């Protein structure tokens, strides 16, 4: 594989390349393992973990995946180095583009999204998989903390074939019993069949992926339950930093770490700048 990096930039020493996977690299790998060939993955603004997950799946087992990056549609398997852009409007992303979408088209054409997978964040994510980007407080006209707003998450979590919740911060502040407001509906209050009754087009969030663990949802109660702990993470730490009670399987599975091959793809082709190797909160 040719090395397209300018000299002196992003070249790692042997020790750095062999360092164990960071929490963000584990998150990206867990999400990548779930993605399937043929799916469309739209990566929104400033989300290094979902971006890396989509690219890792595309490069390892997704030759027919469509990656939607900075409003372009791209095929990236032949790219030795996939540069990361900090801003969604960065024109340099167009070098890979097979299509470049006017934004109103992306938000109007919903039918193709049945093959789509989406990643949704939240300033709060609750035990029923609801997400809040609206704000914190009791009076929505005078929020104690005004959030960024739903952006497109309210829509994308309905029209994509499936989605995951992702948070870079595992804390009781983010992972709460009930969201103050719901901008992207998960399982509501847990009422069975709610999403079907509302006519929402998918089965709801599959995982909550955090820097410490992966949750999935109980098929009947729709409550989050522990699916796996990331390598080296103690259960007590997850309990302490989670704002809702959750079911724990016995024994507790460990989130599969990236293989050496996956780790080298992550570090050399996807995340040469090392954004995933930084410290995670929580």
């Amino acid at each position, binding site marked *: 594989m040719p090395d397209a990096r300018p000299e002196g930039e992003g070249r790692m020493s042997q020790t750095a390349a062999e360092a164990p996977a960071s929490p963000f690299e584990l998150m990206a790998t867990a999400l990548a393992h779930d993605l399937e060939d043929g799916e469309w993955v739209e990566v929104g603004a400033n989300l290094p973990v979902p971006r890396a997950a989509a690219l890792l799946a595309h490069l390892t087992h997704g030759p027919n995946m469509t990656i939607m990056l900075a*409003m372009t549609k791209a095929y990236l398997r032949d790219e030795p180095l996939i540069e990361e852009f900090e801003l969604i*409007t960065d*024109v340099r992303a167009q070098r890979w583009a097979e299509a*470049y979408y006017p934004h109103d088209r992306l938000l109007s054409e919903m039918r193709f999204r049945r093959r789509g997978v989406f990643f949704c964040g939240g300033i709060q994510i609750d035990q029923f998989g609801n997400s809040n980007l*609206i704000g914190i407080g009791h009076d929505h*006209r005078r929020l104690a903390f005004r959030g960024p707003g739903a952006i497109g998450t309210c*829509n994308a979590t309905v029209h994509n074939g499936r989605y995951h919740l992702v948070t870079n911060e595992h804390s009781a502040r983010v992972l709460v019993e009930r969201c103050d407001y719901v901008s992207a509906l998960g399982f509501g209050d847990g009422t069975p069949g709610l999403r079907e009754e509302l006519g929402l087009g998918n089965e709801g969030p599959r995982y909550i992926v955090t820097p410490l663990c992966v949750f999935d949802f109980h098929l009947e109660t729709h409550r989050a339950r522990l699916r796996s702990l990331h390598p080296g993470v103690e259960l007590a730490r997850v309990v302490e930093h989670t704002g809702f009670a959750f079911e724990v399987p016995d024994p507790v599975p460990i989130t599969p770490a990236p293989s050496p091959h996956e780790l080298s793809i992550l570090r050399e082709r996807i995340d040469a700048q090392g954004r995933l190797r930084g410290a995670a909160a929580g």
Partner: protein
Amino acid sequence: MGDRALSGDDEQTVEGSRRPVVTDETSAVAVLCDGMTVGVGGFINAAHPMALVRQLVRRRLKELTVVGAASSGLDVDLLVACGCVAKVVAPYVGAEGLAPIGPAFRHAAQQGLIEVWELDEALYYAGLRASSQRLPFNPWRAGVGTSYPCINPDLKEFEDPIRGERLLAVPAIEIDVALIHAAVSDRYGNVQHDGTGYGDRAIHAAADVTIVQVEQLISPERIRRNPAATSVAGADRVVRAPYGAHPFGSEGYYPPDREHLGEYVDAAQELLRTGSRSRLDAYLARYVLEPRDHVEYLEQVGLRRLVELSEY
């Protein structure tokens, strides 16, 4: 203007002549008044019509409803900071990693100084579409079961008469004047974007009047070389404003000026953190209120900085 001479002094005189729509930013925004609904194009850190926006602030307009872009940027934040805004219609106001939430917007929203018409990007385009179709509303599915109908009671849940499904009725977002930044136009208001133009077409289509500022005025012949690229066919007013999106980027011309945006963000964050407007007011005086027009703004920013901005 002048075209009349082309008809010569034949016995058969053709009545009238085609009217150019080119004007300057000062005259262009004269159409605006207090309380209007103003649409502002662009996308987060790109392509906001800042020459027009700054001129609007100089006019000290009040009580505007600002329809930002689907993901709007610090353009809306600046309008809020200047006290021009009563209500914001936008699913996002911020600058991604440079400022995840617009600081002045956040301050005003938390203090209850502005009303925020809460919605998601798809609901936003449904509202613009309703306006462009001259319908009272457009239906949309996503949003049912969320907090949106509660915190924005204008969004009404209803049972659709065809299949009996639960949907949201998104009222038409009717824009009085749309302000847009684009790459080029001819003198008759045939505008072409470089790149996709983000949601600018939808904002234009939802508006009664569209004012477009462009990096370059070009000949009608050049527009006709690629008519499929014409994104706004017949803007009401065109303003020539090189570097007109600064400090935001303009596709095909220059990227965002991060240093300048950082200067604004720091000033606006001081307002959010401490309630003190001193740094923000100094920024606004220097870059918005003291320059009399777009050229004086560019002089204030400085030629060297502008020339240094390069996309590649």
